[in-house]
């Protein structure tokens, strides 16, 4: 019985609230990495005129996007389960951005699926617009919302908008790396140019964002930005971005993909560093103040963590089934 009492009155381990902060940020990272390259595919799709090339991009996107998108639900519901006030405030205080984002996701998701339903040029064209527009606005709005949250800044401010632009450009970079690893050489070399440009713009954007934060002390984050861990993340990002671009130019696309996916992962780590120990800067709410009671958190830990491991296994399986290069409308076996 003593174990049961412990379960009710104390966290399983003392650092459980911090572990959950890490878990929520992990879900955010998974979302930004995985759906990020989906958004990138959607934006790069705008550069393709040839129907066969479009089909190739859609084939890369088709089997994985829906599963990738679920990570935003995992992120949101984990935030609700562990830090209900933060979930409430992030969404309620950024009402139009949050609902604009979900509507962008709606158009992004419907586009490719509905396009296939009818062989009619006009029909396809409209759904192409829906796919491209959604893929652009979703990361822009999500990033802007995150910028407002982290830096306690208004929508039309440099910190918020630069975060939005950062997410857009990093998505193009990863989308381009993902596609080059899966397509024929001619299309790949065409797409990598966009990826390299996006990587450079992204790196400039991150530096500009952090400089702005230091200068204006947005959200009181200036001190954190000047700390060693943040410096290390910036250096690592420059190495991953610059090195990745070199790998891309040499045609080492798989290696490029790995380093490109590192960029949004590092970005998420940056977000976590900038927030902690606060979790909602506009009211100064900390992780410890916002967390739910021990029993509730222990329960979601015991039931949720094994489930999370299982999910990671599903993804390994899914990407294993749909690995390898794409030719036209289908996977090469």
């Amino acid at each position, binding site marked *: 019985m003593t174990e049961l009492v412990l379960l*009710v009155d104390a966290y399983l381990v003392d650092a459980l609230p911090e572990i959950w902060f890490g878990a929520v940020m992990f879900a955010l990272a998974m979302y930004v990495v995985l759906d990020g390259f989906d958004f990138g595919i959607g934006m790069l799709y705008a550069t393709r005129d040839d129907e066969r090339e479009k089909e190739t991009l859609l084939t890369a996107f*088709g*089997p*994985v996007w*829906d*599963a990738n*998108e*679920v990570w*935003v*639900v*995992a992120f*949101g*519901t*984990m935030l*609700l*389960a562990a830090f*209900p*006030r933060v*979930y*409430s*405030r992030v*969404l*309620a*205080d950024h*009402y*139009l951005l*949050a*609902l604009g984002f*979900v*509507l962008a*996701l*709606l158009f992004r*998701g*419907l586009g490719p*699926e*509905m396009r296939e*339903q*009818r062989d*009619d040029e006009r*029909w396809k064209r409209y759904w192409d617009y829906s796919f491209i527009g959604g893929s652009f606005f979703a990361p822009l709005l999500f990033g802007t919302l995150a910028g407002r949250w982290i830096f306690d800044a208004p929508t039309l401010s440099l910190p918020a908008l630069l975060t939005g632009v950062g997410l857009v450009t990093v998505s193009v970079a990863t989308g381009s790396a993902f596609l080059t690893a899966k397509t024929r050489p001619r299309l790949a070399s065409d797409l990598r140019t966009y990826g390299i440009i996006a990587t450079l713009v992204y790196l400039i954007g991150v530096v500009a964002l952090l400089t702005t934060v230091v200068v204006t002390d947005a959200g009181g984050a200036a001190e954190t930005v000047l700390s060693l861990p943040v410096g290390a993340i910036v250096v690592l990002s420059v190495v991953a971005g610059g090195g990745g671009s070199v790998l891309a130019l040499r045609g080492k696309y798989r290696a490029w993909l790995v380093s490109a996916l590192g960029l949004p992962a590092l970005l998420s780590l940056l977000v976590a560093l900038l927030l902690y120990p606060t979790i909602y800067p506009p009211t100064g*709410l900390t992780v410890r*103040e916002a967390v*739910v*009671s021990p*029993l*509730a958190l222990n329960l*979601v830990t015991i*039931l*949720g963590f094994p*489930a999370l491991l*299982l*999910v990671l296994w*599903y*993804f390994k*399986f*899914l990407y294993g*089934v*749909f690995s390898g290069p794409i030719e036209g409308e289908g*996977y090469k*076996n």
Partner: protein
Amino acid sequence: MFSTVLPDILIQGWALQLSPELASRAQFGWTISVHIIFASLSVGLAPFIVYFTWKDVRTDDERFTRLRSFWVKVFAAGFVMGTVTGIPMSFQFGTNFPQFAEVAGELIGGPLAFEAKMAFFLEAVFLGVLLFGQERVSDRTYILSSVLVGVGAWLSAFWILIVNAWMQTPQGFEMITRNGMEVAKLTDPLAAFFTPRMPWMYVHMVNASVISVALLVAGVSAYIVWKKRDAATWNTALKLAVIILLVTAPLQAVHGDAYGRHVADTQPQKFAAMEAHYDTGTADLHLLAFPKSIDAITDPKAENLFTVSLPGVGSFLATGGDFDAEVLGLNEYEENPPVAIVFWSFRFMVGLGFLFIGLALWGGYLIYNGRLSESSRFLKTMIAASPLGYAALLTGWYVTEIGRQPWVIQGELRTSEAVSSTLSGTEATLTLVGFVVIYIGLILVALHVLRWLVEDELRELGVKVSDDDRWYGPVPKVSDDD
């Protein structure tokens, strides 16, 4: 000229805006009404998909290959629509009802997170395999994928209904103060997950989803059979749908009767609204109700309706056996739900439920006589009935959700207290209009897609389908005078 017109429009626009509370409730109600159609399509279609996939892979029977291929396409389109309409739902707990999310966070956060991790991922990942992977995985993995998609859909309903059932019959918590706000603290997870309402709701909803899909499958099959009587594939599907209705439709009525008694026990105010029962005392059961006047439509009261009633049976039902039992009337409460919507929705749902039993029996009789595909009248009726399962499902949820008002968590938190205090009427009205317009477009697209799938199937069967069905704009009018 513009200088006078524009301010007028702005002023009128201002006047037309709704209060944050009304707009939020309308928006949530509207978005969930559309979402639930696609969500229940997944739940109801899942067992059909598993069965067709299994028969297809195991027997190589051409009929099941076609049925699998057709309904997987419907499932996929429905799943995408369910995803894109479902994500706005979960966001609205935060954007529009943040006080609800914060008060109930410990109780609903866990189940919602489990829904994402245990159910939604499962469905999304293995649907990818089901749609694109037949050539890339073994037959066994392929069948397993269809089963896992189905398990995902049913688990999803399980976790979501844990949340909704808790809102109807909340337990397993105590109220504490955190960060200056009264919030619910989880004290007993088993009690909080398995509330009294949970099993009732799960059985009723899953069965309703299967009934709705069976009617849809029957309607589509009947249409194709009506066009081409010897279409073997679709005769099989029609027969299967009728057999499933023969089991599920009567089950729903029997189960619904007991469920009603449970509602009377646990939510007497909702039960009183369902029966428009105002004065505490014995309650009659109004099998059929006709309004005596316009007032009786908008404000039904037991005494101003022509009813076909069973005296005292309301009491009997509410208590499970006592004809003279006292049933609390609406006059006992300070604030009541909109009685008219609850009262008429309930009658609409029950009426449709009995209609489904009748249709199932009619179809069963025709199967028995071997004349299922011969009766044009039956085929046409089934075509007309194909959307009615969803009509019953929606009105059933209106009884449940609107009947719970003014509470969002029964007896604990009022809906008006849950609405965001930082939300302006302008923002709320703007997004409401946006959701209404976009979701209407989405429904129209969904109907077009279903129609094209059916037409493709007819072409495959050699039935001539006209090609002038443009999806955009009005069809050019051809004068028939000359």
